[in-house]
């Protein structure tokens, strides 16, 4: 935590903006006695980090786009499945857009897809939605299980810690990408019989499953290390002397102290899962066409990049912006939560 001198200087320099912490518990106290929660202090630090704010806006923008995809579709007047290029004759006989720059026009802002002729803007919006939803599900699952695992491991210690630790080492030793590629078809065949049509939910479910399977260990180890150091602290002993149960100690004494780690680690994990999902779809073991997906757009783009580079451009730029913004946001969150980190 903050050392007292640091906290004091923070508090001093921050008092000129009393409105900042108005949501806090200082409702009736005089301003001089206003207590700032560690969270409020972190928020104040974060607000002064310009890069962090910009990245947060970008990330929120992406999430809003994903969430509001049907609304955007309605306003824009197109959807992600209609073959506008073929229906309106915008493709030449090779299946490439006739108009320059990948068919960008007032009708199709980001152009149209080669071959099928779908609208690129809509594809991208819905693709972000698919990828983000899958990555979000993986993150939530991995963080939940990882935290639970790490907490149990760190809190119980001893033999339990040893065996759980070896299990997580074992899971860590799998080569991730190879495992995804090799195992996804196996997992899919578990759900779909030979010759049966595949339901829409099988692919996302398998993607979430395999990524989660190899994704929870890093946060588990982090949480374990934190809990190991925290449980020896005297405030835990103080709670124990008062007769607190293990559950209460975990909930009230340990968890509040590892929230920042969990938060930072999750924001760093999410973009990794987004790229991993896109990578798998690109390699053909992820989402299948015609479902719009970020990775699939890269796949199509890679096929046509010699004749229609514009199609690669939009998903590529969007992915770069998203991943960079999310990573920088994670860094900013970490800096804001831990004032001792100096870059």
């Amino acid at each position, binding site marked *: *935590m*903050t*050392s*007292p001198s640091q*906290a*004091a200087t923070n*508090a001093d320099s921050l008092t000129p903006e009393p409105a900042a912490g108005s949501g*806090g*518990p*200082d409702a009736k*106290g*005089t301003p001089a*006695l206003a*207590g*700032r*929660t*560690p969270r409020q202090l972190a928020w104040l630090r974060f607000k002064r980090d310009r890069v962090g704010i910009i990245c947060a806006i970008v990330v929120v923008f992406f999430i809003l786009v994903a969430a509001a995809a049907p609304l955007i579709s309605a306003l824009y007047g197109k959807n992600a499945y209609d073959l506008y290029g073929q229906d309106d004759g915008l493709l030449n006989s090779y299946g490439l857009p006739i108009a320059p720059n990948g068919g960008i026009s007032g009708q199709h802002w980001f152009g149209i897809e080669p071959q099928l002729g779908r609208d690129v803007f809509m594809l991208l919006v819905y693709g972000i939605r698919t990828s983000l939803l899958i990555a979000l599900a993986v993150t939530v699952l991995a963080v939940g299980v990882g935290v639970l695992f790490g907490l149990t491991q760190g809190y119980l210690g001893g033999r339990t810690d040893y065996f759980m630790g070896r299990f997580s080492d074992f899971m860590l030793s799998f080569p991730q990408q190879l495992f995804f590629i090799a195992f996804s078809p196996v997992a899919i065949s578990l759900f779909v019989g030979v010759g049966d049509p595949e339901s829409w939910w099988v692919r996302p479910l398998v993607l979430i499953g395999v990524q989660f399977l190899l994704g929870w260990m890093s946060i588990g180890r982090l949480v374990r290390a934190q809990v190991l150091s925290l449980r020896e*602290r*005297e*405030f835990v*002993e*103080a*709670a*124990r*002397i*008062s*007769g*607190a*149960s293990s559950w*209460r100690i975990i909930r*009230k*004494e340990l968890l*509040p*102290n590892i929230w920042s780690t969990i938060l930072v680690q999750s924001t760093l994990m999410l973009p990794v899962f987004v790229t991993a999902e896109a990578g798998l779809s690109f390699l053909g073991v992820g989402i299948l066409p015609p479902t719009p997906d970020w990775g699939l757009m890269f796949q199509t783009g890679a096929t046509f990049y010699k004749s229609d580079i514009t199609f690669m451009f939009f998903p590529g730029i969007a992915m770069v912006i998203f991943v960079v913004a999310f990573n920088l946001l994670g860094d900013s969150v970490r800096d804001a939560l831990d004032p001792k980190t100096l870059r």
Partner: protein
Amino acid sequence: MSEQVTLDQPEDTAPEPAKDGASGAGAGGGETLLEVSGLQKYFPIHGGFIVKRRVGDVRAVDGVDFSIAAGESLGMVGESGCGKSTTGRLVTRLLEPTGGKITYAGQDITHRSRKELAPIRSEIQMIFQDPYASLNPRQTVGSIVSAPMEINDINPSGGREKRVRELLEIVGLNPEHYNRFPHEFSGGQRQRIGVARALALDPKLIVADEPVSALDVSIQAQVVNLLQRVQKELGIAFLFIAHDLAIVRHFSQRIAVMYLGKIVEIGDRASIYERPRHPYTHALLSAAPEADPDDDGRERIRLAGDVPSPINPPSGCRFRTRCWKAQDKCATEEPPLVQIGGNVAGHLTACHFPEEPTITARKEDIVLDPALAAIEEAAEETP
């Protein structure tokens, strides 16, 4: 520290004694609140390749007997690693004793589980050494101090918040600090919060594990005085663990001196500080710095070497490896903790060849370290 103010034995401290079957009078008057006999704590050492097995023990506490009367303060002194803190943690049952017996108000609590301990949890509390580690940085002062009440489901009249504000006032903090976080306080203030938390359940016994050694000297006095006020006004018994002899003398009516997991001497304040018998107590007292540098009236004893390893303690008397009076008997026979002729009742010493009950200067200083002896000799020769 103003020692003369409190040197007289406060006889009026014992308030309402424990009602349910206290087992006889303690040495300091009043009913015995806590009785510890033969207490042991061995920490196992595991070794071996692949297959771990127990290769030895660290005998942190090895057969300790003492008792604390209601409202009384027992000081526990000794050098680092002698088992003081472990004893404190055994008494609060943070650690499971390896052997021996702990009796609190007539009930055997040696091996009780967490659930079984619940009724007496509120009566034994602890104040910790490090005020920076003993308060959860993510909780407000209010929730830290009210947590013990919450855990034990105690609802004081007027609500918990009112009680917390009262407690903050008792320990000398502004009740308006209720909603503040620990990082906004100084070390001394944090220790006051720790005291408030310990008082939240109206305990009868507080184990203070070096409560001031992490604080500034100027703050130490304030916190010790606060603890003393708490002890006298609320009639709470203390097990006061410290290595600062002056503070223990200021605070405790009875003192126990520990060496390598055992109590070597125990007695009331005047006996231990004015008429010590055990050679180790003599050495310890002579090592404490004196406020007056020109005062040559005290004996000087310089021990050599380190405390032996608690993994493999010396046979017989544990102090014999560093004792200037050690003889063959000390190696073969362990001296019992008994009252030696010439001592007042309750002053027990574990030594075969006790020293004279005085701390005035000897004809010749005892300097066991040959190198140090040579230096001192040279210093004396040069004018």
